[in-house]
């Protein structure tokens, strides 16, 4: 039985079993000066104007261009993520109820700070300032969405920075 299990394990290694890799099936993109992020495609797709977007359900059905459900742009900045997040927080109107949170995602070893707010157009915003290990640079994820961005799926996108899939 043990030999059988070992054989199956070896077989799965050769064929490529999926469980265990958090970004299995996701697509890697090179962004912001040679950094790598992982996105699930679909629903994410590269936007013609740069960055990434998730088309709305109406756009996917009719094909007509409509405001995207999610928009993501990834840029580089210099400075400490927490200081950058606090500076962004200070610029936002109070009525948008902004909020700053520190985070630490385990998968890619990413740490940093988030700023959340919801503007008057009822669109949700999240800017994640991610510290680059061994560097003074910061990678900035700017999300704009029709739904709340305080979710594990968005955390996984931010946490995928420089994540290396095990061979």
């Amino acid at each position, binding site marked *: 039985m043990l030999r059988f299990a070992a054989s199956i394990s070896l077989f799965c290694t050769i064929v490529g079993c999926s469980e265990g890799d958090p970004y299995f099936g996701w697509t890697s993109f090179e962004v912001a000066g040679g950094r790598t992020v992982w996105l699930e495609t*679909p*629903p994410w797709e590269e936007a013609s104007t740069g960055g990434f977007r*998730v088309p709305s359900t109406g756009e996917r059905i009719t094909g007509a261009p409509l405001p995207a459900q999610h928009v993501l742009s990834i840029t580089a900045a210099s400075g400490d993520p927490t200081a950058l997040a606090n500076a962004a927080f200070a610029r936002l109107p109070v009525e948008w109820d902004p909020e700053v949170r520190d985070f630490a995602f385990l998968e890619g070893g990413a740490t940093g700070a988030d700023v959340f707010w919801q503007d008057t157009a009822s669109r949700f915003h999240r800017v994640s300032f991610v510290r680059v290990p061994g560097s003074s640079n910061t990678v900035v994820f700017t999300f704009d969405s029709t*739904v709340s961005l305080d979710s594990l799926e968005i955390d996984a996108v931010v946490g995928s920075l420089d994540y290396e899939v095990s061979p």
Partner: protein
Amino acid sequence: MRGLLLLTAFGLALSGSALAQEDATSLGTPLRRSEAWRQRPTRNAVDSAPRSQRETPAATPRGSGQELPEQNPETETENTAPRLLGEYATYSLPTAGPGGRVHGFAFAPLFPTGRLRLGPRLGFATRQYPLGENDLVIRADALIGYQHLSSSAFVPYLQAFVGGAFVFTRRISVPIREDVFFFGAELGTDIRLHPKFFFGVGLSLQFSRREVANGTSLGLHVRVGF
């Protein structure tokens, strides 16, 4: 003397007439019944015979040429396999991202094809997605294989399956449908607990293919059969 003889003859004639009349009233019916009895079919004759004289089919000596076919109720249930399966199964179906473990139920009406195990299988399941809502899996596949029928309570089988599934997911609040194609093999046994009730266990190795990646998984199947 002549008168005595006539008197005697008259007396005998009277007594014979009286006896005949008595037979006609009290003893005459048994006579008619015995006559009808002789005209009955043989089986009725056996039924109406004294219990000590009856011969049951089981008591009939073999080879006598008068044996009736044996009616052993167990014979009807031997060498049979379940016709309708209801099973719980767990396996993995590749998904983009973490998770992918599937738990679901399926039913499979099998064709009465003896040792050929043949039939469709339809199932519903949920696939775990730790970053959000679980996915819904609707799966259909065809089974074909061999099942070993014997007088034993165990009905071991080896079957292949091929089919597809629709996986309905929600990723960052966007509904998406994934189409998955899969095939594999399953080895197991059904155990006859009652002439028409089975319990079965099986292990499967499944290869699945979706748009972005392939997957291989071991599956466990626990079922009841009727």
